[in-house]
């Protein structure tokens, strides 16, 4: 279970406050969607949960199964089960995707005090995962994300998610830059990973993604807070009426 309580966050140099007392609870097995206009702090929330260093935490706590994530380094959070699918996945030239996947999986099992994966087991898991997502073997030999299209990068994020088996997976605008076919593949990949002990935080601008990844709860974010919470029908309402009802008092 992920519990965020009274979270106040500013950009590191203190120039701008982005999260203003955010509260959010996501239960095990729950798929929560966060929607909101540009600049409402959605991406910041995903970065702060994952531990990106550019932010200053002014107040509040983030607990994953009772453990305070804010006390942990980004790699320790990853090993504890936090996964962030990036909106813009980074390129690592010269590092074969396969090499990167193995390094990441082994680093996490080491951190958890588990043994490293045997190479044949690793190869098999990658092969099965890649096939499901329509990722050709040839891509796995190329430098990570180097020269990949937007859709290929997103599929690679989902493959990493499948291999790393997180307890909380955050999808930061995974639908951006995807055509409808790619969106379907990615969504199927995500749906296949839904389980009773894994929760999801799906960040998106548009309702479209939620037709494929159907959420249990929808949260509207504005000015760095959750301003409304509802079921999946809330997404449809937002689609029809826009965010105006929630952001009207922001204009000034």
């Amino acid at each position: 279970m992920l519990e965020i309580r009274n979270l106040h966050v500013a950009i590191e140099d203190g120039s701008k406050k982005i999260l203003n007392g955010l509260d959010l609870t996501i239960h095990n097995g729950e798929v929560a969607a966060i929607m909101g206009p540009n600049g409402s702090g959605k991406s910041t929330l995903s970065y702060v949960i994952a531990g990106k260093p550019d932010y200053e935490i002014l107040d509040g706590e983030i607990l994953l199964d009772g453990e305070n994530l804010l006390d942990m380094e980004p790699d320790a959070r990853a090993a504890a089960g936090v996964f962030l699918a990036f909106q813009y996945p980074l390129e690592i030239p010269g590092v074969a995707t396969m090499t990167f996947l193995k390094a990441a999986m082994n680093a996490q099992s080491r951190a958890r005090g588990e043994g490293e994966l045997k190479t044949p087991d690793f190869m098999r898991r990658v092969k099965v995962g890649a096939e499901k997502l329509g990722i050709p073997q040839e891509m796995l030999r190329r430098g990570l994300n180097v020269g990949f299209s937007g859709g290929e990068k997103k599929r690679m994020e989902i493959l990493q998610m499948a291999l790393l088996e997180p307890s909380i997976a955050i999808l930061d605008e995974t639908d951006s830059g995807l055509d409808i076919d790619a969106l379907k593949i990615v969504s199927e990949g995500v749906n296949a990973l839904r389980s009773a002990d894994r929760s999801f935080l799906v960040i998106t601008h548009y309702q479209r993604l939620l037709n494929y990844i159907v959420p249990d709860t929808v949260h509207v974010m504005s000015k760095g807070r959750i301003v409304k919470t509802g079921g999946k029908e809330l997404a449809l309402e937002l689609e029809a009426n826009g965010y105006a009802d929630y952001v009207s008092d922001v204009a000034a």
Partner: protein
Amino acid sequence: MVAVKETVEQVKTLDVDQYKYGFSTDLEVDKAPKGLSEDIVRFISAKKGEPEWMLEWRLDAYKRWLTMTEPTWARVHYPQIDFNESYYYAAPKLNAAPKTLDEVDPAILDAYKKLGIPLREQEILAGVTTSKVAVDAVFDSVSVVTTFKEELKKAGVIFCSISEAIKEHPELVRKYLGTVVPVTDNYYATLNCAVFTDGSFVYIPEGVRCPMELSTYFRINEKNTGQFERTLIIAEKGSYVSYLEGCTAPQRDENQLHAAVVELVTMDDAEIKYSTVQNWYPGDADGKGGIYNFVTKRGDCRGANSKISWTQVETGSAITWKYPSCILRGDNSRGEFYSIAVSNGMQQVDSGTKMIHLGKNTTSRIISKGISAGRSQNTYRGQVSAHRKASNARNFTNCDSLLIGEQCGAHTVPYLESKNASAVFEHEATTSKISEEQMFYCRQRGLSAEEATALIVNGFVKDVLQQLPMEFAVEAQKLISISLEGSVG
């Protein structure tokens, strides 16, 4: 940027304690008196039991050296060197000229064992992981042992110390010594001509593909002693050899001088592949101690269709001043230079290559990867020139620099000169930093900061590592990680 701050903090406290070869070996040594003079040159020559012509050659070089001045054009800074404060000859006393390995001082064998250099042929043969490599082990001023000599002899290959070659194969040494790097080439090369003590000699006869990798392992052990190695490799028509070189030295507070000269000659259709992993002691975090590495390495593609390829991984030395070069004399000859230069702490590197195109249709390729961390300065300096007769000369140069932290520097100084209109030179250069975003991405996947840096750096140097022989590549990869330990937060 929190991570950058951490990096800076980390760099401040950086210690070069990670140097794993800093031990020294206690031995009784036979030393020349301190300082440099004509008498010292005579002393060295006498110790080596050299013929008269060699002594004359040395004395001539010494006289010329006295008239020369130290070059100052490189981007390196160090206090004036007092050449009279060094020892120019130091040899282990016990059995200075051992016939077999059993006669070598056990303390020396132990030192090589600690360094992981196999000297016993049966051990090498028993080893399942490494392929067969013949080793010439040079300890301070003398070669202590050369392995697999007999087996190489059967193939017609001569592999021995240069001291031995001067006595056993004077006709070959006289024919080639100083023909690639002339006696008066530069200040350090001339000094080397006067006082060189040992190094390797390789002769590959016509049409022979050397049956195994050859290597020399240089170890400086004595305090205040300079090492002046001299290596000469000759590949006759249609022959091939791959040669590896490794170097380490104990951790000492004083700077020590290493001024080597390496000459390579390839005749028609011959190829020499020369790989170096240089890991001399780099000095401590404040720049105290470390080796001054002033090296002249040059290959002469004398014959048509011949090829010389330099691959270097430079991680050690306080100062590196080194430009392995190719003279592309034969038509259709090819020169290659692949380099990884890593600097950390207070290290200063000024390294690169020269590709001198003289023959027709000559080609050259330069791939240089510089990685700077700590407060180090890392300069690539390269010259590519085409003589007026060098029709259709082609060069491709790619220089990439990677910066880790905020206090280091990377510099690229290319010199291009073409006197032939048909020559085509291409030059690409990039400078990048390991971005905060890349670091965060890797750490989000569970990698520690150190693991992430090592992974990104290994990706950066991959093109060059691929040029190294297998076992060496693995070694080099480890070495690069060790050299950068403590460079990230």
